[in-house]
């Protein structure tokens, strides 16, 4: 059994067969699940911690600072220290708050982002679930997260939280449409929703190149809309510091607050991976049809590198947004979605459909 970093299918089969040969199928399944669960949990934690650290470093560099650098080399353990601190912090309960909902809210937020992550393909054969409805599944699951935010805002019994929750509720549901529609544009081009197929179809050219103008428009719209959907700046009205102190999680302390924090970053990671997968070919190397030599060189770069490279780039873009722009006002935010992004998106889908009809795509 050779282990191949370019194709994990055989690796999976190897594990599967190995487990099945030493135990009953039920137990094999359970063990497999346990392995997947632990792996994803670790992955989730590591990505979360790393993203928080990365954001701090990136914004520091944009602002001519150095950022955390005193805990470990280059401060890489900074977020671990934060995590330990937060874990050891008292949880405050507010009088007259609805304790049940107050506690459920972080669960919903985290579970939604965690479940959505399960459909992301990291490399060939390296994904937990490969639905035929992949994209729709991700949209469906991540649309649950907003419930957590609404519950958090309402159950805190705090005016700021309530305003923040209402704002982010309206914002997230609005931008969900644009996220869905911009992905639809690519689905029209691809003719499938399954992530593995989508990636496979980009073997000889990523969709953003294949679908040229409409795909680029869709990508930009997706980037804007998904930034808004994850409640990140410049769309961070829900926690607009200068207006609502900390928005919907004003009353959350310690680890509960950390979960909202974490969910924000995980959602960012999620949308970045979706964007990378759908528009930029996921783990697929950069290929130019006809340049065989070039393509083989590109093939030598492992898919995981490609995948994380693209994701990191998109995350960097989103950070650049956050650290450059002032925040929008709520009415401008909704105007942007309903009067600009949505109509553009609808026309863009038709445009793409037309393109597909005429076979004008590459």
């Amino acid at each position, binding site marked *: 059994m050779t282990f191949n970093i370019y194709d994990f299918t055989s690796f999976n089969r190897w594990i599967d067969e190995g487990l099945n040969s030493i135990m009953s199928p039920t137990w094999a399944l359970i063990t497999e699940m346990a392995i997947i669960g632990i792996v994803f949990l670790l992955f989730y934690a590591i990505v979360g911690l790393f993203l928080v650290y990365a954001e701090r470093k990136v914004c520091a560099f*944009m602002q001519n600072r150095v950022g955390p650098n005193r805990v470990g080399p280059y401060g890489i353990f900074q977020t671990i220290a934060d995590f330990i601190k937060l874990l050891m912090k008292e949880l405050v309960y507010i009088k007259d708050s609805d304790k049940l909902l107050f506690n459920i809210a972080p669960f919903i937020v985290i579970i939604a982002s965690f479940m959505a992550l399960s459909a992301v393909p990291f490399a060939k054969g390296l994904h937990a679930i490969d639905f035929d409805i992949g994209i729709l599944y991700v949209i469906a699951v991540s649309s649950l997260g907003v419930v957590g935010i609404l519950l958090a805002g309402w159950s805190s019994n705090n005016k700021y939280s309530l305003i923040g929750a209402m704002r982010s509720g309206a914002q997230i549901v609005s931008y969900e449409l644009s996220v869905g529609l911009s992905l639809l544009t690519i689905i029209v081009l691809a003719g499938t929703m399954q992530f593995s197929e989508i990636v496979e179809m980009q073997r000889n050219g990523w969709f953003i190149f294949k679908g040229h103008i409409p795909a680029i428009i869709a990508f930009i719209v997706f980037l804007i809309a998904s930034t808004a959907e994850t409640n990140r700046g410049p769309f961070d009205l829900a926690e607009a510091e200068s207006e609502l102190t900390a928005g919907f999680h004003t009353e959350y302390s310690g680890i509960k607050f950390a979960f909202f924090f974490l969910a924000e970053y995980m959602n960012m990671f999620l949308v970045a991976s979706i964007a990378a997968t759908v528009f930029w070919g996921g783990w697929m190397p950069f290929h130019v049809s006809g340049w065989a030599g070039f393509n083989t060189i590109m093939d030598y770069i492992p898919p995981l590198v490609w995948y994380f490279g693209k994701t990191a780039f998109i995350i960097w873009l989103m950070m650049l947004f956050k650290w450059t722009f002032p925040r929008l006002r709520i009415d401008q935010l909704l105007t942007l979605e309903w009067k600009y992004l949505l109509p553009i998106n609808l026309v863009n889908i038709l445009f793409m459909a037309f393109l597909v009809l005429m076979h004008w795509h590459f």
Partner: protein
Amino acid sequence: MNSFFRYFSDIFHGVKSLLIGMSVTGRYFFSPGQIVTQQYPENRKNLQMFERFKGEVIMLHDINNQHRCNGCGICENNCPNGSIEIISARITGEDGKSKRIIDKHIYHLGMCTFCGLCVKNCPSNALGFGNEFEHAVFDRSKLNKVLNQPGSSIIKGVE
């Protein structure tokens, strides 16, 4: 029709201005040479305060542990917020006359606003500003200092 075109030109200008903004932060991101951060505790050795920096009021002592303060109390009177207390003593000098000398020149660092009036108005230039700034303590009483060092005496001929 006009508003229709405005719709698109708005989008265009908006996107353009956003890109310009992003170019600024992006440029700084890629030029780490522009980082201005001073790494304080690490650079402690070569961290040089400006010579006039007002970190704390000190009494100037020479190598013989002698200072110029005669306990006249002018600084105490000039201090706008009572950061200085003079406790003077009377001694009998060699010539037999009793004269006033400084016993304790008490300085409340925790109250001083570094206005410089005491230094400026001291008739015998006994005071000055020190460059020390690392004053943080756990116990507030540590901030009350006696400026004339133990065992110090006044330079001859100043009074």
